[in-house]
């Protein structure tokens, strides 16, 4: 009885911990092992070294996916942060209807990527969407067919992704701005600094941790982006807007290339870890310092 009482907290956590160990870490280990085998339709546990990784990096399709990920990630991060910073600073100027405006900026975060993709697919429809509207109001030669143009369709994913996530980045920056001590800004004003230089020289540099968080969140979102691609372009036309997450599921469930799919999943996992581990480390150290 005493033993039970003493160990009850551990007993309560144990099932969840076991579940996490098995379903997260065990599964990742399994995927890693399978990536080192010849597995095709079914897992085959015969060791095959790093052949799947060599195959992966020799595949033009994987290169397209990785290039698209680069294009998407860079534009997605730059645009979301640019919009987020501007909107948060502007909203922080004692705007009367701030609450309503914030609600409008953030509602896309409540939608699924499938809904967002469906809506933008219709807006960007090459014959019925924006193009038709522009033609009707007098720009007869206006063309907008990125959705069906190889090499351009990846940018439609950027457009929809930025629309969905930039409001959230605004909210993170606004919270950061609100946590800065007003005294600092007042003192700078007394010293005669202009509003512009207060922001560029004092406020934004103080927001470095917020920039870090925003970049980590957006990087993480972009490496995992799957739903939006499927709903908007399905990786097309052809494979021109493929991304690693789409590549992985296509190989695993469409092409019966279990080994290759596992190798691509491990590449994604390693990339995410390379970003998250240092981030978590610095965050936890900060937490310790505060204590």
């Amino acid at each position, binding site marked *: 009885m005493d033993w039970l009482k003493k160990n009850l907290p551990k007993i309560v956590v144990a099932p969840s911990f076991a579940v996490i160990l098995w379903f997260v870490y065990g599964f990742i280990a399994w995927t890693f092992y399978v990536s080192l085998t010849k597995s095709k339709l079914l897992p085959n546990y015969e060791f095959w070294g790093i052949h799947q990784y060599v195959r992966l990096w020799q595949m033009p399709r994987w290169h397209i996916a990785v290039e698209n990920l680069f294009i998407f990630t860079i534009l997605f991060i730059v645009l979301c942060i640019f919009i987020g910073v501007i909107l948060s600073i502007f909203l922080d100027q004692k705007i009367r209807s701030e609450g309503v*405006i914030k609600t409008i900026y953030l509602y896309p975060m409540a939608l*699924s990527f499938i809904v967002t993709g469906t809506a933008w697919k219709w807006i960007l429809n090459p014959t019925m969407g924006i193009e*038709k509207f522009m033609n009707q109001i007098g720009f007869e030669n206006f063309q907008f067919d990125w959705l069906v143009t190889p090499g351009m369709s990846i940018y439609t994913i950027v457009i929809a992704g930025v629309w969905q996530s930039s409001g959230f980045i605004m909210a993170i920056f606004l919270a950061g701005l609100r946590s800065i001590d007003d005294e600092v800004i007042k003192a700078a004003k007394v010293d005669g600094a202009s509003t512009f230089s207060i922001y560029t020289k004092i406020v934004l540099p103080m927001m470095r941790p917020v920039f870090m968080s925003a970049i980590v969140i957006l990087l993480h979102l972009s490496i995992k982006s799957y739903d939006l691609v499927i709903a908007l372009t399905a990786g097309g036309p052809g494979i021109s807007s493929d991304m690693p997450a789409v590549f992985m*599921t296509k190989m695993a469930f469409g092409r019966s290339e279990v080994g290759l799919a596992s190798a691509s999943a491990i590449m994604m996992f390693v990339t995410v870890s390379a970003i998250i581990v240092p981030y978590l480390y610095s965050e936890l150290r900060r937490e310790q310092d505060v204590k």
Partner: protein
Amino acid sequence: MLNKKKLLRYFLFLVLGVFIFYYITPLYVMIVTSLKDMNEIREGNLFSLPNSINFESWKIAWSGRGEGTSDTFLKPYFFNSLKITIPALTLSTILGALNGYALTKWKFKGANLIFLLFLFGTFIPFQAILLPMARTLGFLGISNSPLGLILVHTVYGLGFTTLFFRNYYVSISDEIIKAAKVDGAGFFKIFFTILLPVSLPILVVTIIFQFTQIWNDFLFGVTFSFGENAPLQVALNNMVLTSASVKYYNVDMAAAIMAALPTLIIYVLAGNYFIKGLTAGSVKG
């Protein structure tokens, strides 16, 4: 001369206004498109208002045209999603609350390491677990069933729910707990009488976050279920991608709005809790 300050103020409102327009336009387009008939869509443009308010497409999106098997409509999938979302969010929230409590108020050796493993688990790209999960569900005999998706969402929601409660309980004073322990109160008594009564805010945050995550999930749904067992987002995507010769954009838009309505309503009613969950769930701070 207009003074500079006033001019700046106008510029500020202009920019804020342009972005209101940017965020609201897709919703506006979805709504007006869903209310038009196909002739109006062909003749008009994205932004033109419907001639009359016509909910025909909404009816079709929800319960079909009654034309036999090729007809996809949302109603059954809406209930599939509810059947998955409610148990998974309940289970993961209860477990998360107990874990968060045990890890902060009954610190045992290794508690921090355990938390770190939970935390890192929330970041992994799910592609790294899809294949073994598919095999496990098959092995357990629950692939392509609501039960399978409940399991998946509970397991991969645990990290988030534990994180939420852990960070909330850390800020609650240990003194009261210590006093209660001295008085001989046990693990569950302290939880139910001291912690739970002050947990309402974090409960709301967690429930909203989990509801949104599970409701909006596509990857797990499309990987671990098909046909009539699919959740709502998968059905919506299938509906839009249909290869039928005539595309009903109005029905697509009505379906998309319906799929978004539950989370949108929660967002409008409880925006602050919604944002708190998002921030805590992604910054993990």
